[in-house]
């Protein structure tokens, strides 16, 4: 009896000790994380964070306890762990920290809010998207992507985002606009209208992604917007618009593209010639032969020869008389 009593006592002691051992491990892991964060050692902090995240939900309370009193670096690492654990218990803290004095904290809070806050986080994130700190803005847009929201007010924010100097924000913004459902009547589509209004402000780092979005979203209905982009002042935007027009084989763009093919800007002229070849309107063959005859630039002559070959399958290269004879014999 005494032996069984002893075993029972030992088992009870072990069972009682198990949770506390687990808690101690969590405490230790969080303590290591905070020490590394305070010391500013990102590599050690990341390793400690990896352990903390491994505890999952059981680490949440410890991460949240007294979080406001911690240093900015400690808070940032705590928020990172909470994001990886994806706990909704951190929602209020995340929302509150979006207004923290330190940018590093606001940034982590924004992405955490977006990850766990859903629609409720959208107003906060819209505010954060105009933060003075570039990293906070980035995380705010990341957060907006994470929410999966299609709130109407996001159209304006994301349209502003595609004009941001940070390519990261451009990519996020295109993703946000991309998931907003298109109107059944595409001519009344809010996204298309907003992008159309911003076309004049596109540049080389956002034109490709934006016009790709437009083509995927509206197909042939994006013609008017692309015509507007073909008139843009920045050559990089016109080049992307030419590519988009070629993807759609936009016949209505031919007169404008033909004018661009005569441009003194070689890059623009080459893109326009390529666009004509891809649209492949047979009425432009004669125009290209005329253009070849007057061309002096070897690269342009090459581009025209390639365009003519693609359109006709004929191998006259830069031989204008050959092309003329062939045109006459058709």
């Amino acid at each position, binding site marked *: 009896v005494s032996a069984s009593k002893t075993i029972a006592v030992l088992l009870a002691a072990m069972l009682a000790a198990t949770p506390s051992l687990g808690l101690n491990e969590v405490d230790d892991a969080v303590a290591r994380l905070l020490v590394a964060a305070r010391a500013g050692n990102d590599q050690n902090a990341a390793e400690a964070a*990896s352990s903390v995240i491994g505890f999952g939900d059981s680490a949440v309370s410890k991460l949240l306890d007294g979080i406001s009193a911690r240093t900015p670096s400690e808070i940032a690492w705590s928020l990172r762990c909470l994001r990886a654990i994806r706990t909704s218990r951190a929602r209020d803290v995340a929302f509150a920290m979006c207004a923290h004095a330190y940018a590093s904290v606001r940034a982590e809070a924004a992405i955490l809010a977006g990850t766990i806050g859903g629609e409720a986080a959208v107003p906060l994130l819209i505010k954060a998207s105009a933060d003075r700190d570039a990293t906070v803005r*980035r995380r705010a847009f990341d957060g907006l992507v994470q929410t999966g929201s299609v709130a109407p007010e996001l159209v304006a924010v994301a349209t502003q985002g595609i004009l941001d100097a940070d390519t*990261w924000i451009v*990519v996020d913004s295109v993703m946000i606009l991309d998931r907003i459902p298109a109107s059944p009547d595409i001519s009344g589509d809010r996204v298309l209208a907003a992008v159309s209004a911003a076309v004049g402000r596109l540049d080389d780092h956002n034109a*490709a992604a934006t016009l*790709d979005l437009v083509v995927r979203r509206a197909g042939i209905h994006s013609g008017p917007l692309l015509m507007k982009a073909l008139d843009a002042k920045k050559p990089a935007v016109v080049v992307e618009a030419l590519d988009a027009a070629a993807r759609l084989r936009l016949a209505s763009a031919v007169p404008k593209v033909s004018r661009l093919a005569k441009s003194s800007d070689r890059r623009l002229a080459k893109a326009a010639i390529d666009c004509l070849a891809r649209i492949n309107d047979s009425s432009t063959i004669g125009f290209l032969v005329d253009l070849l005859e007057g061309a002096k630039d070897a690269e342009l*002559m090459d581009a025209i020869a390639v365009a003519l070959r693609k359109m006709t399958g004929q*191998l006259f290269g830069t031989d204008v008389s050959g092309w003329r004879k062939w045109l006459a014999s058709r």
Partner: protein
Amino acid sequence: MHTTAASNAGAAGRDRHPRHERGAALVTGLLLATVLLGGVAGSYVLASAFDASASRTARSEAERDAEAGIRVAIGEMHSGLDSGTDGLGNVTSAAARDRSLLVRRTDLGGDLHRLVATASVKRASKTVEVVVEKKRGPALSWVPRAAITTKSPPDRRAPPEDDANDWNAAGTAILMAADKPAESLPASPDALFGLPPGGLRAAAIASGTYYASQALFEAAVRTKREIPGGCIIYLDFETWAPADLGKTFNAVPSVIVHHDASKPRTAVNPRGMFRGLLVCDSLVLADELMLVGGIVSFAPAGTGNAFWAGNASVRLSSAVLRDLPSPRSSEFVRIQATDGGARP
């Protein structure tokens, strides 16, 4: 009437066989004529045969010369070195009095050229016409089915998201959700692309994108604000810290190789934006990284590979990985050949 006996005898004889003698002469004459005619005809036949044979030989030599001329022209275009002073792809040769070669190149645009070679040997000539295209060597191709593929199981956290979907080349839209099968990797990056050992390194050296130090590489990135596009970049230094990939995407996908089989390399905190394939060993942290394409880590177990803790986003894009650069130089290939005729 006086006659001698002999004359008489002769006369008698002539009188005896006059038709006989005339026949013999005729036969002899005919024979002689036949022999003479035969001789003349034989000589003519022999001369003709000799001439035909010489002509065939000359024509065949002309054909060989024309073909050789085409090869010389292609060689000039390939090397960029003009063997004469008549322009790349043009060959003019009149080495011997009765032998000449002329190759003329016409640019058909878009790396397509027509070469017309006319060779003359004695009285024979041959024209060969070919259309050649400058073709890029086969491109690197390896499309995994997950954003990050590691040779050994990652010893720490893998990226939390984005690794199962196939994105467009802009990194803005998911084209399809990809599977995440166990991917087995070959022994080395070279083997990954079916290249001989050192193939990637040699390709980078050839394209001027081999960097023996981080400073040299950073200078190249700084100049453009982005990673050089459309090339194989070989980083031949041990620790890449901080691993800065530039502020905006490279327009054309590239391959970055930072690997050493004998002593695994470490890329510390890669950040920035990159379109292409990052072939590495150990990745320590990854923050503020947006990569469209893929990452493959050859780090052996226990070296801390594929560790993620920050705001990295790695998006698998088969569209990008199918558009990787070629490790081989361009070559000219014949795409059309025409027999331009022969004379005589």
